[in-house]
C-alpha cells in the first residue's frame, strides 16, 4: 500500500497528490510515468511523473478527474492508501545541451509533467523558454515552479483571464518570430493541443517531442493497448515512449483510439456517481 502524504486541490477537478512510493522515487526520471490502481475494483491508470523526491521517497502527480477511476483517485485524502503503484515506466526524456534555446510547452495538467523536463534541461545548461497555458486562470497550475526552472516564462489563458489571451500556439509563433533559432521543443497537454503545436513547428523543421498518454493497462509492453502510429511504424507508448517525434505521430488515429471505451467510461462514471449519491436519485 502506498500512502498519500499530501493533497492539493487546484480546482474542483484538478488535484495534486504526493504519494510515498520509495522504490519508484528512487529510479524516477523526467519524462517517465507510473501506473496506479486505487482499489481492488478500479482500473490501472497511467500518469506522468510531475516531480519526485528521492530523499522523502515520494512521487508527485497532478490529475484531472475524467473517468471513474481518476475520480475515485481524486476523492482520496491525505493519509489514504493507494493499493497499487508501479513504476517508473517508459523511456526517460533525452536531456542534452543544445546550442540554441529549448522550448517547453505545457497545456492544462500537461504543465505538471513538463516541469521536470524543463528542470533537467535547465540544469544541463540550456536556455529554457516555457510556454504554459490553460482555459482560464482557475485551471492554471504550477506557474511559480515553472518560473523557477525557466529563463523566460510565457503564460496564456484561452479566455484572457490571466497572462496573455490566446492559445499556446499563438505564443509560440510570436516567440519564433522574435527569437528565430530554437533547438528543440517539448509539448505536453491534451492531444489536440499537441497536434496543433506539431502543425506549427513542422514548417520550421524544429525537433518537436510530444508525450503520448494513450489507453494502457500493464505498462510493460504486454497488452498492446497503447499502440501509437509513428511514421510507418507501430510503437508501444509504454515501452517505446511515451515521448515520440511529434511530426511523425498520427494524432487523428491517436485521438480516435482514446475514445474506444468512451461509452463504457460514461457508464462507469454514472454508476460511481449514483453510488456516491451525488446525482440525488437515491
Amino acid at each position, binding site marked *: 500500500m502506498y500512502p498519500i502524504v499530501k493533497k492539493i486541490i487546484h480546482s474542483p477537478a484538478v488535484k495534486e497528490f504526493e504519494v510515498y512510493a520509495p*522504490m*519508484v522515487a528512487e*529510479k524516477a526520471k523526467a519524462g517517465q510515468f507510473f501506473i496506479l*490502481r486505487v482499489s481492488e*475494483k*478500479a*482500473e*490501472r491508470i497511467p500518469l506522468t511523473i510531475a516531480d519526485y523526491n528521492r530523499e522523502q521517497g515520494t512521487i508527485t502527480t497532478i490529475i484531472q478527474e475524467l473517468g*471513474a*477511476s481518476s475520480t*475515485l483517485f481524486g476523492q482520496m485524502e491525505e493519509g489514504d492508501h493507494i*493499493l*497499487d*503503484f*508501479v*513504476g*517508473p*515506466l517508459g523511456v526517460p526524456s533525452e536531456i542534452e545541451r543544445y546550442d540554441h534555446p529549448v522550448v517547453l510547452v505545457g497545456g492544462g495538467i500537461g504543465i505538471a509533467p513538463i516541469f521536470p523536463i524543463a528542470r533537467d534541461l535547465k540544469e544541463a545548461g540550456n536556455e529554457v523558454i516555457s510556454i504554459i497555458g490553460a482555459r482560464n486562470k482557475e485551471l492554471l497550475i504550477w506557474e511559480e515552479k515553472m518560473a523557477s526552472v525557466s529563463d523566460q516564462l510565457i503564460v496564456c489563458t484561452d479566455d484572457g483571464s490571466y497572462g496573455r489571451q490566446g492559445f499556446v500556439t499563438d505564443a509560440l509563433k510570436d516567440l519564433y518570430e522574435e527569437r528565430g533559432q530554437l533547438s528543440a521543443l517539448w509539448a505536453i497537454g491534451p492531444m489536440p493541443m499537441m497536434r496543433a503545436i506539431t502543425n506549427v513547428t513542422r514548417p520550421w523543421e524544429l525537433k518537436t517531442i510530444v508525450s503520448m498518454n494513450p489507453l494502457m*493497462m*500493464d*505498462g*510493460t*509492453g*504486454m*497488452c*498492446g*493497448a497503447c*499502440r*501509437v*502510429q509513428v511514421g510507418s511504424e*507501430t510503437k*508501444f507508448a509504454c*515501452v517505446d515512449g511515451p515521448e515520440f517525434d511529434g511530426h511523425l505521430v*498520427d494524432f*487523428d*488515429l491517436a485521438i*480516435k*483510439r482514446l*475514445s*474506444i*471505451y468512451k461509452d*463504457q*467510461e460514461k*457508464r*462507469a462514471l454514472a*454508476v*460511481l456517481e449514483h453510488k456516491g449519491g451525488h446525482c440525488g436519485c437515491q
Partner: protein
Amino acid sequence: MSVKNRPGRQEMPCQAPQERVSNFNEVALGYTEEQAIIEAKRCLQCKKPKCRDGCPVEVLIPEFIQAVADGDMATAAKQLKLKNALPAVCGRVCPQESQCESKCIVGIKSEPVAIGRLERFVADWEMAKEEAEEAKVADLDTVDGDQESESSATASPKKQKVAIIGAGPAGLSCAADLARFGYDVTVFEALHVAGGVLMYGIPEFRLPKAIVEKEIDSLRKLGVNLQVNMVGGKTFTVEDLQQKGYEAVFIGTGAGLPNFMGIPGENLCGVFAANEFLTRTNLMKGYDFPNFLTPVISGRKVAVLGAGNVAMDAARTALRLGAEEVSIVYRRSEKEMPARAEEIEHAHEEGVQFKVLTNPVEIVGDEQGWVKGMNCLRYELGEPDESGRRRPVPVEGSEFFMEVDSVIVAIGQGPNPLVTQSTAGLALNRKGTIQADEEGRTSLPGVFAGGDIVTGAATVILAMGAGKKSARAIDQYLQSKQS
C-alpha cells in the same frame, strides 16, 4: 485384466455448451472420486514408464496414479507435489495429448489413461481438504503443537538469497524448488498479482483464478517471498539485485510483447491484441463491468486471428461477453492448429466458427476509425515448411470481404524487452530471447533464465520444466560457490 477388457477412458463431466457460453464458470467440472479410481485402475503400472519421459517436470505419474487406484489420495497428492509446484493448474492447461498421454502404452490399443484429469482430481482433492482443515483451525482458534513445529521448521536458517524476476509459470516453479532446497527466495512480479499468464491470460472458465491463488498460497507456505508491483528493468535491475545480496538471479519474464501481422489497418479502433482483450477480462475482471471499472468490448461480429490456445481463449471469451458471431480465422487447416485438442473441441461445441485457409490482407475501417471488416485471401496447403506443417499458399484472385466489427489478434508474442535491454552483457538471440543452455545458464555468471523469455512463446508446462531445471542449476552453482 487384458487391455481389451479394460473399461474405456472416463469422460470428463462438463457444463453443457448452451449453458456455459453465457457464464464464466469453469467448463470442465472434474472427476468424481469414483471416476478417478476407475480411471486410475486403467494404468498398467509399466516398469519403465514412458509417460514420465513425456512430462517436462518429471511428475511421478505411475506412482501417483497407483495411490489414486488404492484410494489413498493424500499419498497421491504428496507424490504429485514432489515434482510439480502447480498441479491444479497443470491438470487443467497442459497439452497432455502431446506429452505424457501421447506416450501411454494403454493409448496404443485404446485411449490413453487420462493422466491430466487424474492430476487435476488429486490437486483439487488436496485443496478441498486443506480448506476444510483451515476452517477447522479457524474454528478452534488455538495454536497446537503441530503448528508450532511447522513454523519452527520454516524458521530454520536459510541458505543464500535468490531472486526470481517474473511470477509466471517458469518463475514460480523455479521458486518452489529453490525454497524446498532451503534457499531464501524472493519473486518480483511486475503486475499487481502473481501468476503471470495464469492470471491475466488464461480465462476463468478454463482455469479459475481462485485455483491459481491457492496454488500460489501454497508457495508462500513453502517460504517463498512474493513482491508485486516490481518491474524488472524499471523499478530495479539485475545489477541492483546482485548489489542487494542476491547471489543468483532467475529471469522468467516471459513472452510479453504481442505480435501483429503488419497489415494496413491494424491500429484501428476495435483491433485488439488478444493480450489486451484477455487481460481486461481476466486480470481486471472486465466481465463484471461496471462492478469492476475496467471495460472490455467484444464486438458483435468478431474475427480472432490465429489458432493457438490464446486464440481459442479469446474466441470463447468473446462469446461469453455477448458477441453474436465469433470466427477463428486461420491460414492453415484445422489439422495444423496449435491449440490443445480439447480447446478446439470446446470452441466448436460453443459455436465458434472456423474460417480456415483464410487470412486477412487488410483491416478496413469506417469514418470514425472503427473496424468494419477485413479484406481476406483464401489459401490452399502446399509442400511442408521448416515446421513440418504444410505451407499455406494464397489462391490467386480469391480476395473477399469479411464483415466484422472487432478483430482480436492472437498470432503469438515476442520476448519482453525490459529486463534484457537493461542487463549489460546478457547475450541475446536474434529475436531478442535470452541465450541460455539446457539448464538455464546465461552468458552472465549467477544469472539464469527460462521459460518463454528463452524459448519464445510456448506452454505453461514447458516454462515450468525450464524453471525446475534452472532451480537445480542454481543449487549447483551456489553450492560450488560456497565450497
